[in-house]
């Protein structure tokens, strides 16, 4: 239970970049898992993969529900400001948890499109195999590879725009 909680909370946090939202979404994920446990089949991968699929679907739903806020954020993104607003508004305990560069990477992640963001999170932060990501995202392997590749390049460019260059 705690292992799954930690993993799901981390996926939600990396996707949203907000601790409170990640906690609420983690609760929603477990509630949905609890209610739809009857639909789980081991043939569709392990429980962790299935729970990750549920998490991903819920994150996409959440993203669509809060699209208006995202549009506002995207307008902010277009402004050539190097200052990182999210980093400035982050709580001190979160700053202690994340290194400076990790915070910049986290901030850049939230500016990626959701399709690329989820692919990069699953591959580079959760370190899932391509086959598992293919199951979670329900897309062909070529699409998975393409999204991961484009996500990495896009993320590197965002960091470059932010004035951050990973060492």
């Amino acid at each position, binding site marked *: 239970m705690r292992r799954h909680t930690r993993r799901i909370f981390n996926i939600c946090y990396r996707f949203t970049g907000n601790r409170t939202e990640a*906690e609420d979404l983690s609760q929603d994920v477990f509630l949905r898992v609890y209610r739809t446990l009857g639909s789980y089949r081991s043939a569709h991968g392990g429980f962790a993969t299935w729970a990750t699929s549920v998490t991903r679907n819920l994150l996409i739903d959440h993203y669509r529900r809060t699209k208006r806020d995202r549009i506002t954020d995207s307008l902010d993104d277009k402004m050539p400001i190097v200052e990182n607003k999210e980093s400035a508004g982050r709580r001190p305990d979160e700053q202690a948890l994340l290194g400076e560069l990790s915070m910049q990477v986290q901030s850049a992640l939230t500016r990626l499109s959701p399709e690329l963001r989820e692919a990069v999170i699953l591959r580079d932060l959760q370190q899932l195999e391509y086959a598992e990501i293919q199951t979670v995202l329900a897309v062909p392997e070529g699409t998975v590879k393409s999204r991961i590749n484009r996500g990495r390049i896009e993320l590197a460019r965002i960091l470059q725009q932010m004035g951050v260059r990973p060492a």
Partner: protein
Amino acid sequence: MTWTCDLIEARLSDYLEGLLQGPERAEFEAHAKSCADCAPLVASVRSLVGEMHSMEELETPPRLVYSILDKTLGPRETVTGWQGFLNVIRGLAAPKFAYGAASVMATLIIVVSASGFSLRKAKLADLRPAALYQRADRGVHTVRARCVKYVSDLRVVYEIQSRLRQDENNLQTAPQDLLPKPSPEKNPGQTDDRKPSQPRQQNRANEVTLQMEMLAAELPMLSERSGR
């Protein structure tokens, strides 16, 4: 194959993950080193991937697990007032608690009776530690004396029993000539045809007369007095 910048970009992750082998890899590296646009891109993506792989997972907030449990299994019931009191009473009536209470009571009764405290004539002064100690001490000594007496009584009984058994054994193992034997020649109702020379009464009278004569010879004073 001609490696353009677009192709380098498309195969960048394959290169970083070691999926390009042989001449493909060599051509990729040759272009990436020579191209002014691709070289920084490859370097930045490589370091970014390394950075992301080294990012540690965040710890779960402590309250999150409880929130999840509340949300899935329902909130824990917090009953107050009379309902809560009744729940406590119901809990006391549970078999487990009843067994526990009975065993505690039994232990208390044993301890109190061992300390010599009389429940029929209970006095507050009897509960003083010194009085409790004296009664317990007296009780211990009484019990010890009873035990000693019981053991000594047992010893006497065993000793008597062992002696009786020893006598029986001696009788069984004794030689036959020490035991009184019935005469083989005499049977009940039969005579051996031998007649005593004198009757038994006469023998006894003779013995008495003889003894009187001896006594008279030794004590003449008695014979004179009898002569008168």
